[in-house]
């Protein structure tokens, strides 16, 4: 009986949403009428990181804040802003963290140099092999 009650309680349980009671912002889940502008907005949204579900882009995230950021991106694109300007505006607020696009700042140098270093190591190892093969 106790188990049954527990089961019923589990089935009847409702998830607690830490969300507001307001509907999503107008452009959060709505495409811009101009396909060229929508494509620009979509490309940018896929490169902006969600502040709530870190690791997802705002294009993928269901978080309310991500919806509000999609609304902001679409509104600004529709108003004629360049995607680079919107990205720069957000970086000014949240740091480079907010953008998935790698930058050229010193912290990102290992990212750019790693393939080159690995290639050099590979070439060095291959050269040794080739020499051994010849002798």
């Amino acid at each position, binding site marked *: 009986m106790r188990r049954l009650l527990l089961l019923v309680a589990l089935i009847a349980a409702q998830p607690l949403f830490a969300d507001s009671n307001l509907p999503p*912002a107008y452009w959060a889940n709505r495409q811009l009428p101009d396909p060229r502008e929508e494509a620009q907005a979509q490309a940018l949204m896929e490169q902006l990181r969600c502040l*709530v579900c*870190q690791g997802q882009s705002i294009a993928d995230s269901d978080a309310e*804040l991500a919806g509000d950021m999609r609304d902001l991106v679409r509104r600004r694109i529709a108003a004629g802003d360049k995607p680079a300007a919107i990205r720069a505006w957000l970086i000014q607020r949240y740091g480079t963290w907010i953008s998935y696009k790698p930058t050229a700042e010193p912290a990102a140098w290992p990212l750019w140099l790693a393939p080159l270093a690995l290639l050099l190591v590979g070439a060095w190892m291959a050269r040794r092999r080739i020499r051994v093969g010849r002798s």
Partner: protein
Amino acid sequence: MSRAIRFAPLALLVLILAVLVWRLATPADTNVHSALEGKPLPAFNLPAIIPGKPALSSAELATGQPHLVNVFASWCVPCVTEVKVLQTLKDRGVHIEGIAVRDRPDDLADFLARNGDPYERIGSDPQSDVQISLGSSGVPESFVVDGKGVIRYQQIGPIDASDVPMILSKLEQAR
């Protein structure tokens, strides 16, 4: 092949494991800090949401006195306990201004009636616009703003009773 090189993969494995264990033991800070600390508050002009409670604009935060700007919401659970700590700060003479994110007038009035109202002004931010322009990533968050309207400190998450001396000293430094 020399002996040292033969053990290189093992050494690499040990190194990688050590890094993994270290990061598990001391997890990275996943809070996103606002890049606006030390910079002027972005200009904004938010409408009022509660009858009789003045609206909030950035101009009112550069009048010579330090302010504590609290980004909150009636639907935010930690805000319920935080608002009581804000009351303590208000009793110590702190000017507290509120930015209500994605809120409805009835819900907010109910929240304030139930938990207390330490706010001098409350601006309504229904689409998180001002929250995003402040570099804030959730509720509750608080900003210490000095008399010239420059952001001096960002508190991520609720202000606990144990944070009161720290917040007071930040406000004192912003004087």
